[in-house]
């Protein structure tokens, strides 16, 4: 057990010493994850609300599709993103491969189905009489929608938190689209993968502890907002 104990000591020492590489990776992780969560919320919430309240033939198929996309492995998104963003690919002209922007694009694609799906679930769980009641009280369609969103706001919040949880923890997209470039696209998760591959277990552990702490802090913050 000496190995683990020793690694914990080293890890804590690294954190206390505020290792610059560690905190650059934390910053990159948070920046990329927050950007992609924001974009996924802007696209996924309306999508979820739309699918949730509309009734149309084939709705089941759309919901099943969203469910399937939710389970898509991150390396598959990474692979598809790589094909799109490489200079050989259709979007190659922008030269985005191995930049933080590429990571945001990939992680947004990863989070949208999750945010949308949870939103659909929240809408489905809402009291179906809301819209009818609002309408009888003389509300227009926009107002009705507002009432509904107000009713399910906690569900939408949970959807966004779930999306954030998925992107902050993933390594496939970050590695394949970011390239794990030191001080630029290296995130907490790709740094952990690299340090472990270099045999630097303690360093990886230090990063793991900080990653959990960062995820916890963001979730506590979002939860605090939700309570209000």
């Amino acid at each position, binding site marked *: 057990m000496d190995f683990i104990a020793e690694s914990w000591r080293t890890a804590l020492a690294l954190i206390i010493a505020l290792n610059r590489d560690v905190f650059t990776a934390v910053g990159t992780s948070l920046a990329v994850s927050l950007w992609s969560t924001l974009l996924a919320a802007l696209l996924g919430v309306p999508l979820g609300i739309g699918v949730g309240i509309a009734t149309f033939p084939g709705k089941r198929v759309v919901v099943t599709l969203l469910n399937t996309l939710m389970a898509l492995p991150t390396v598959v998104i990474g692979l598809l993103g790589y094909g799109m963003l490489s*200079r050989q690919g259709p979007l190659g002209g922008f030269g985005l491969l191995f930049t933080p922007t590429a990571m945001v694009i990939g992680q947004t694609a990863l989070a949208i189905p999750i945010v949308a799906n949870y939103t659909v679930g929240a809408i489905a769980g809402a009291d179906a009489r809301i819209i009818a009641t609002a309408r009888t009280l003389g509300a227009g369609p926009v107002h009705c929608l507002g009432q509904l969103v107000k009713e399910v706001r906690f569900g939408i919040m949970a959807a966004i938190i779930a999306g954030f949880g998925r992107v902050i923890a993933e390594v496939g997209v970050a590695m394949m689209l970011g390239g794990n470039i030191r001080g*630029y696209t290296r995130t907490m998760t790709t740094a952990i993968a690299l340090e472990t591959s270099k045999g630097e277990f303690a360093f990886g552990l230090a990063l793991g502890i900080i990653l959990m702490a960062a995820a916890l802090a963001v979730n506590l913050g979002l939860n605090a907002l939700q309570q209000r």
Partner: protein
Amino acid sequence: MKSLRPLLLVLAGLLLFTGPATATEHLKMSTTTSTQDSGLLPVLLPAFEKKCNCKVDVIAVGTGQALKLGEAGDVDVVFVHARKLEDKFVADGFGVNRRDVMYNDFVIIGPTNDPAGIARAKTAAEALKLIAARQATFISRGDRSGTNIKEKELWKAAGIEPKGSWYVEAGQGMGPVITMATERQAYTLADRGTYNAYKGQKTDLTILFQGEKGLFNPYGIIAVNPKRFPYVKYDLAMKLIDFVTGPEGQKIIAGYKAHGEPVFFIYRK
């Protein structure tokens, strides 16, 4: 929506602090894992970055993939070690101005007790024959890296097609493969640079065969052809090439040591 407003405000605030970095020029270099895992690049590149006021983005993969990234035009410069593939890369028009940078050599490492007895072998091919005959575990990079290509050459020279449960294809970089070989107490082909960086704390494997001419391991740097890919940062790539092959870079390479031993050697001019 009211309750979402503070959340959005917090998000916007965070994003302001973490927005896109400043507009320093970025040079993309794909390279083999050994230059990074051995610890050379972290001492070599900052000197160049300071001098040129730029940032070198290192994508460390196997030599095969590093060249592929060059063939796709996804990087500006490649720094690898597989002479035949490098020459093909240039001949096919993907790269220009290949220059020799440095060299080291490959070694066969394995458990100290040397179960296959390869320390007595006279050639690398003979050492591999002994490993195969004993069915001693051998970890192969299996990733078309420079080391993997060299390893395949050696098996061919030994007249053996390695397969069976004793032959493990890891599909990972040099560092992880050394770690894996250490955990499994297996043999593997390693470049001396990465091995020296791992020796001691991270691995208890020892060098059991070395010094054959066929194990020579030269590194080259190549600019990606700007005629083929007009957007590559050719001028900056050439500045980097001039730096690593010039007196300043060569001095850093020759002076870089891991565990008190030199890792790479420069050519006498």
